């Protein structure tokens, strides 16, 4: 299905990442946003508030992030595509509702424009230290998808992907931006609506008397029903059976929670998004994402000019982590260098996947600015030795 032309601002634009993300939500078909102001993410919903009255939809500024992150879920069950936007402390407040969305299989998008933490941290400066929180922040076992754009163009493109993936897998999808990507202004090309592929929500075709809200299809994802159409379905954050009814049995818990994770398996490797360069002959592979990947790009160029066979592996899908691809590379490279604006988060995944086959060298940074390319270069040089 193609994008609804009403939301698509076709043309060549000069936009920052936050604004481009907003245009992505509109192109993806989002017609409901709830937000609460927080730097450096607010521009996304500010633009949505300005655009949506002439597109047709709702923006509401809620009283806090708890409210924003569940208002979107009410909107989804009423039939809308919906999202919220936040940063640092607000992302922490949203954790319970990320768990609710995972448990009730509510397709929705959470945009986190990362800033320095912990706590109030560095409100106006970049960080990438919410990566583990995005994956594990709510209690219990569940799966999510997280995407990491590194340019305003990708903020647009990946936001559409985020909505599409949320509909396909019925999981909350995190857009893991950072302050730099959110606030940098670059060329953004928005295509014609018929060039934008949209994944429609999969509603049940069964009559109400036959419909079971959590009966999975073969791909382990159940079909949805829309409120107000006579299905009289029940949705709960309690452990539930296929009818959606609470069920406290060990068997139901096991069946449900395992399915919540297993349904994402197709994404983990074959379909994970990444950008690679020079992996064929690489001795050292730099694994990076978001703004750090642009600094890493420079470091890789410098290394190549010195005759070091450096390759690039940019994570676009951070979660599910593409472990098999890293494992395969680990068998034939000397080392991975993993720069990130945190004290070591995704590097733990690289280590796990490499499983001792190759060295894994973190290049940590507490946040507040980006790396100096020389720091990453030095790590590459060291690794190549």
């Amino acid at each position, binding site marked *: 299905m193609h994008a609804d032309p009403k939301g698509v601002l076709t043309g060549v634009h000069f936009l920052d990442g936050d604004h481009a993300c907003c245009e992505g939500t509109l192109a993806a078909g989002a017609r409901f946003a709830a937000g609460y102001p927080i730097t450096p993410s607010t521009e996304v919903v500010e633009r949505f508030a300005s655009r949506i009255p002439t597109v047709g939809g709702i923006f509401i500024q809620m009283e806090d992030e708890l409210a924003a992150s*569940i208002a979107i879920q009410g909107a*989804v*069950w009423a039939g809308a595509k919906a999202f919220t936007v936040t940063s640092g402390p607000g992302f922490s407040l949203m954790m319970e509702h990320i768990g609710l969305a995972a448990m009730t299989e509510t397709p929705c998008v959470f945009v986190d424009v990362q800033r320095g933490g912990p706590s109030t941290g560095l409100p106006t400066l970049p960080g990438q230290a919410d990566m583990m929180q995005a994956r594990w922040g709510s209690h219990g076992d569940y799966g999510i998808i997280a995407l990491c754009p590194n340019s305003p163009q990708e903020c647009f493109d990946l936001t559409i992907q985020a909505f599409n993936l949320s509909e396909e897998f019925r999981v909350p999808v995190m857009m893991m931006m950072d302050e730099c990507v959110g606030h940098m202004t670059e060329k953004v090309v928005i295509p014609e609506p018929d060039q934008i592929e949209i994944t429609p929500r999969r509603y049940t075709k069964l009559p109400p008397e036959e419909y079971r809200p959590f009966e999975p299809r073969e791909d382990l994802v159940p079909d949805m029903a829309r409120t*107000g*159409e006579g299905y009289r379905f029940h949705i709960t954050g309690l452990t539930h059976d296929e009818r959606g009814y609470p069920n406290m049995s060990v068997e139901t818990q096991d069946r449900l929670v395992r399915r919540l994770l297993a349904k994402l398996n197709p994404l983990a490797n074959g379909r994970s998004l990444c950008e690679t360069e020079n992996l064929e002959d690489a001795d050292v592979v730099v694994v990076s994402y978001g703004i750090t990947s642009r600094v890493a790009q420079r470091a890789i160029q410098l290394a190549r000019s010195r005759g070091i066979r450096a390759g690039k592996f940019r994570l676009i899908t951070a979660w599910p982590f593409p472990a098999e691809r890293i494992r395969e590379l680990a068998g034939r490279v000397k080392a991975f260098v993993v720069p990130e604006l945190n004290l070591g988060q995704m590097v733990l995944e690289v280590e796990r996947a490499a499983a001792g086959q190759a060295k894994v060298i973190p290049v940590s940074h507490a946040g507040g600015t980006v790396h100096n390319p020389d720091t990453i270069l030095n790590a590459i040089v060291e690794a190549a030795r």
Partner: protein
Amino acid sequence: MTPTTLEIPDGAQNPVEPFLRMDRMPHIWCPGCGIGTTVNCFTRALLDSKVNLDKVAIVSGIGCTGRVAGYARLDSFHTTHGRAIPFATGMKLANPELQVVVYSGDGDLFAIGGNHFIHAARRNMDLKVICVNNMTYAMTGGQSSSTTPAHVISATAPYGAFEPTFNLVALAEAAGASYVARWTTYHVKQLSRSMEEVLHKKGFCFIEVLSPCPTLYQRRNKMGDGLDAMKYYKQASKIRNGAPTGECTLSKSGEIVVGKFVDRDRPDYLELLRAQMTEALGERYVESEASCSC
């Protein structure tokens, strides 16, 4: 004592059964609990109001009353603790055709969820909020809530509660609710009528229902069983429609002022939104569709 058995004749049916998920019975509520009584009143209100039940959604938070959504044969949502109102807000705005009812307890709506209550009332969001007030956190074992009156013993106030309480009806009025009423589970006719009334009233409507918790609240305070609670409600209640809500504070064993206190017309959130956008944007304003084509 010989046990009493009740023979249910073949074909007999409680008139509220079509509104309940009978495949989920028996429910979890204790003998003497008032929540079931309020559900009975609610189903009768739905029946009498002749609203299209396919368009009614019910949203609950967490707690004993939070289980109501799960028993109602409607599109029903059992959300997180305290957050039924913002979930309902999103639902209502994404599809204004829906009649969205929030059904939850005092702990859920006024302690953890208090912020959402006042803001939804301020916005005059078109939601019907029913609060079953048993003055305790019953699901977790009878701890103090923001409505537990002074001197009451609770699991977390073993020497007696002493914090000032919220007067829910005054709070609702002050925050901007269009409709405010209070009844007890003794006043089944009046409660049913109030519930029916709000199903036809636009804007933020609030009904508080005092309801007994014999298992925890009453047992700990030697206040007898469910029947004793009914006797107390009957004896202590005074119907004063239109009473100033500030005079309707509740206490452990004092007078209970019940009635409809507020019934006023204020433009609701969507009316205000439409008016402002039309003023600012004129014909460029595109009203939100009932729900998107996605």
